């Protein structure tokens, strides 16, 4: 029943002369274009975009959408990505006129409502992190990391210290080393302990007066809380370094413990994960950072500040921190996502925020328990919001790989977990059910996995069998990448 015609490439659906949008005639004097623009700047013809009528366009994209799995349609326990349900109220409210149509250069006096919202968002993020100064500017988690590292660099520069090293555990998310390198630091990777935690002794060997920042994800990539985090922070601080908390996993701890309280000096949030900004097939996100007081003056501009009016009236303004690093992007930030995060936090309130974390932990541990017999986890009896199981046993006994199980899950109507990450676990399968999934869904998912592991190995090696495509060829395609229509046609 799939409509295959509509999902051809746009360039294949194009027919010269068709069009999907008409513009009004000009109502201003028809001066010759040549009088307005120099002829050498003008194109002979507009770009060769495909030519389609409106119904072609709609049917194309609507049919394409049905080839996707998504949170709205499927359980999506992709570890480390916090694919929780995206409340529909956020979509409605973030599209309100007065929010969605505000020009970024609108003057502060004309946007007091929006500034109040963003100010309150800063305040809530500060409270949840335990770190008082906030910048909402970064566009995603990685951008937040980079921004915070610029802040750190500016701080040390200001203090006249030359610190060149950023240290992080081997299990760190790829963005941590990539951000450190991009900010101009040297990267030092720690092996860590066999139980997945940071090895303080190992860390100490690298700490010195060249150490700028120690970056650590807490809870870590195995879904475990670094129990010695306070100790770790102390040894970093002792050499004058800063502790950066990668907050991608805040969903496990919000309302329960705070980075600022366990030793962090800086952190980022992933609003699109923890606070349900929808993931948008890859983005957009929003990656605000929170820092300690002594770093506040270095934050990028602008931030929202409440002005003292001497009366009950609230007034908000955009302000530039005194020693600002400048900017890491144009305009204020990914406001559309921040509004969704704001809605989420206002919906939950203090008790709800904590409850969400607790429920995420309960769901993860429940799923862990359900799967323990077939997909045991190497680390920890319990976990926080996610856990990493291993298909190593199945691989050895039956030749079934983590990839096979992942692909076969698609046939059962489930999005697979993250596979082969973190690298420290062989045949890793990283499950993050999130708090918005019901027990019934977790039960059904577990049933599917239990069925799969008893299925014929060949059936699994060739899975999936019910998806639009199955197991793309990657090796040749990487050698000779085809990245545009133009390139396909050249093939």
């Amino acid at each position, binding site marked *: 029943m799939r409509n295959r015609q509509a999902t051809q490439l746009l360039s294949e659906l194009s027919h010269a002369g068709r069009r999907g949008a008409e513009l009004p005639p000009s109502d*201003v004097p028809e001066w010759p274009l040549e009088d307005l623009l120099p002829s050498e700047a003008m194109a002979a013809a507009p770009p060769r975009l495909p030519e389609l009528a409106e119904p072609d366009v709609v049917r194309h994209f609507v049919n394409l959408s049905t080839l*996707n799995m998504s949170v709205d349609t499927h359980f999506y326990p992709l570890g480390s990505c916090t694919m929780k349900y995206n409340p529909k109220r956020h979509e409605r409210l973030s599209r309100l006129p*007065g929010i969605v149509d505000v020009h970024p250069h609108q003057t502060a006096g004309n946007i007091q409502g929006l500034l109040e919202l963003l100010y309150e968002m800063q305040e809530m993020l500060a409270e949840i992190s335990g770190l008082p100064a906030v910048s909402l500017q970064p566009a995603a988690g990685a951008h937040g990391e980079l921004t915070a590292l610029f802040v750190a660099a500016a701080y040390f520069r200001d203090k006249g210290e030359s610190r060149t090293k950023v240290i992080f555990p081997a299990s760190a998310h790829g963005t941590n*080393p990539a951000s450190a390198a991009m900010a101009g630091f040297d990267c030092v990777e720690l092996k860590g302990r066999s139980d997945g935690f940071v090895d303080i002794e190992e860390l100490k060997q690298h700490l010195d007066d060249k150490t700028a920042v120690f970056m650590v994800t807490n809870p870590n990539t195995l879904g475990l809380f670094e129990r010695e985090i306070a100790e770790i922070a102390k040894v970093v601080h002792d050499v004058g370094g800063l502790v950066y908390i990668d907050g991608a996993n805040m969903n496990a701890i919000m309302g329960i413990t705070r980075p600022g309280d366990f030793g962090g000096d800086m952190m980022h949030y992933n609003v699109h994960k923890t606070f349900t900004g929808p993931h948008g097939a*890859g983005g957009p996100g929003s990656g605000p950072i929170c820092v300690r007081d002594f770093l506040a003056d270095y934050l990028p501009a602008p931030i929202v500040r409440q002005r003292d009016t001497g009366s009950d009236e609230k007034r908000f303004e955009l302000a530039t921190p005194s020693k600002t690093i*400048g900017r890491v992007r144009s305009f204020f930030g990914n406001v559309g996502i921040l509004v969704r995060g704001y809605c989420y936090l206002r919906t939950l309130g203090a008790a709800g925020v904590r409850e969400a974390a607790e429920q995420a932990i309960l769901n993860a541990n429940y799923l862990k328990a359900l799967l323990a017999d077939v997909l045991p986890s190497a680390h920890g009896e319990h976990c926080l919001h996610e856990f990493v199981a291993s298909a190593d046993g199945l691989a050895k006994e039956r030749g079934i790989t983590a990839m096979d199980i992942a692909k076969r899950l698609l046939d059962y109507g489930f999005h697979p977990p993250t596979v082969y990450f973190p690298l420290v676990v062989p045949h890793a399968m990283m499950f993050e059910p999130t708090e918005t999934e019901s027990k019934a869904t977790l039960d059904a998912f577990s049933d599917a996995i239990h069925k799969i592991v008893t299925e014929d190995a060949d059936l699994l090696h060739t899975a999936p069998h019910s998806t639009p*495509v199955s197991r793309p060829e990657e090796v040749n395609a990487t050698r000779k990448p085809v990245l545009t229509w133009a390139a396909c046609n050249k093939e």
Partner: protein
Amino acid sequence: MSYLFTTSDEQQQMLGRIGVDSLATLLDQIPTQLQLDRPLRMPPALTELELERHLRELASRNVGAASRVCFMGGGAYDHYIPSVVDEVTGRGEFYTAYTPYQAEASQGTLQAFFEFQSLIAELSGLDIANASLYDGGSGVAEAVLMAMRCTGRTGRVVVAGSVNPEAVQSVTTYLADQPTEVLVLPTRHGKVGVAELESYIDETTACIVIQHPNFFGELEDVEQIAAVAHQQGALLIHSFDPISVGLLKRPGELGADIAVAEGQALGVPLQFGGPYLGILACKKELVRKMPGRLIGQTVDRNGQRCFFLNLQAREQHIRRAGAMSNICTNQGLLALRATVYLSLLGPQGLKEVAELSCRKAHYAADRLKQIEGCELLFTGPFFKEFVLKYEHGADSAIRKAAAAGVDIGPMLSRFPNLNWLPQEVRDQCLLVAVTESRTKDEIDRLVTALA
């Protein structure tokens, strides 16, 4: 919150299966002394009905383009967004999916982004485009880093003063801790002086960054600038307005090696500055130095055409510290919006949007400059935006227009790094941008307000 609700009987069953008495046991993983011993200090929880009331109240205290007449520019524009864009990108299968790691469960996303890359390559006149960066400003910074990788040069980066000052600031911030010198070339006459530029370029220069049409709306001599860059082995980074190529030559035709753009104009709402869409395209030979995600075409097990995440080895999750960028979550949904927008418009539609914007901007400029006390700061050819100088001060112009329900700006004094313009000029000047959405009547209303 209602959509979190798991009943207490379910919780008990789950705890039982886990083999613990209570949630507290699970929380024991977090050392007690680190646990917060008080509730968070947050405003009270709101039901959907209350939240909607609250947001409507906040929204009512903002001035939005939908209820006013918007002539604002400076990098974000009130171009019309056809309804199809919202309808299609509002589908849960798109907006609640994530990075298409599992190709079999993501062909919709993958194909759409492959189409995006194809459309942007065509728009830019270059070979290859990635599947989005954060925004236009950070995109310029990424392009500069890319140019440094491509040329192996870290000595100097030359940026035209006529590039969007917030993008310039991003470059400065990104390179603050690098040994590289960022040289911003004042453009006092509204655009780059090619002869002056030439004197700053040497064999340590990684790239020249220009914007065309530039921040002041003016056209640059891109081909000559490209020649200057290439003569010294530097790359030309051209920041462009994706609408402008409906009428103007494309970056690739003008000699650019890397094109970047703020893609907001392609169907993305203003929403106070984000999420927008960072566009980056380049020549084929630079592809392996590109930041960001790339979707490739291939065939599946059964020989069927399909799409997947190609060249991941450039990305942070594989290459880590050696990655071409730290970008992970990108601006996918906005790339989808641009894809839908461009497939609706087609070549003819894009041309008409460009032409209408250009014509109306010229009509507006012509009328405005006849007003006593009003002039255009620069006199060169411009596309859809220009700098208006108002002798009573830019803020007075904004106030007068606002009183007539019309928004103009930003004032140039908003941008600290335009400090190569005299303070009094900055205080008097502001941008006026005109899109196809504006009517002659609205332009006349603005004229009346300032007259």
